């Protein structure tokens, strides 16, 4: 139960940092916000990764994904009230305003032609658009390689 409580605090610290700054937190940032030491945070990261809440870089401590947020720049940029977020994929680009419950503008590009997409998203959803979403990987295999998916 103790580790479960810690995992909730760590998760909230990670997501709270992304929500406020648009950037991934350092391990020290999370430790301070969660009231835990760095070793405890890293142990929690491992459990959260196993639960598919976080995706870590190979160093085991840098956050690559806290879906829908990306820890690194991507082609999917979401603007919310002057803040900029990177999303992991097209799905997550709409996931950012869904998670924040705020209006947003999604900036991305066509996967084939590179034509720019600018999509306004209100609290009730995106403006009418003929653009499409396409996913190559079947649902049962998304987590085989979530970065590729």
């Amino acid at each position: 139960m103790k580790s479960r409580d810690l995992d909730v605090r760590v998760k909230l610290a990670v997501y709270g940092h992304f929500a406020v700054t648009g950037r991934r937190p350092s391990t020290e940032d999370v430790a301070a916000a969660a009231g835990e030491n760095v070793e405890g945070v890293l142990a929690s990261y491992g459990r959260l990764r196993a639960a598919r809440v976080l995706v870590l870089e190979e160093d085991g401590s840098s956050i690559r994904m806290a879906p829908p947020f990306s820890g690194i720049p991507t082609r999917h940029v979401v603007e919310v009230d002057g803040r900029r977020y990177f999303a992991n994929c097209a799905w997550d680009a709409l996931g950012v305003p869904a998670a924040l419950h705020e209006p947003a503008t999604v900036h991305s590009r066509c996967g084939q032609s590179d034509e720019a997409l600018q999509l306004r998203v209100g609290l009730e959803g995106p403006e009418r658009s003929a653009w499409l979403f396409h996913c190559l990987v079947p649902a049962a295999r998304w987590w085989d390689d979530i970065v590729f998916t």
Partner: protein
Amino acid sequence: MLFFRSEERVREWCSARASPVRPLVSMAQLWALAKAWYGSRLQPDSRRPRPEEMSEIFSDLGLEGDFWDPTSDAFR
């Protein structure tokens, strides 16, 4: 998981990679998926949908078949 300007652009992209064209998803459907996956993500008790919940979400949006079945072994 990418955005495309049209179905034609999807077909071009898949053809260039010798990949099958998968089911196309509208922006309205994608918004419903985004809300289902992430609407409570910043809350303490949030979690990813379980496989049976995923299937129900997809089915409600008309997204059915092996491609959308999180337990399918059709692509193994």
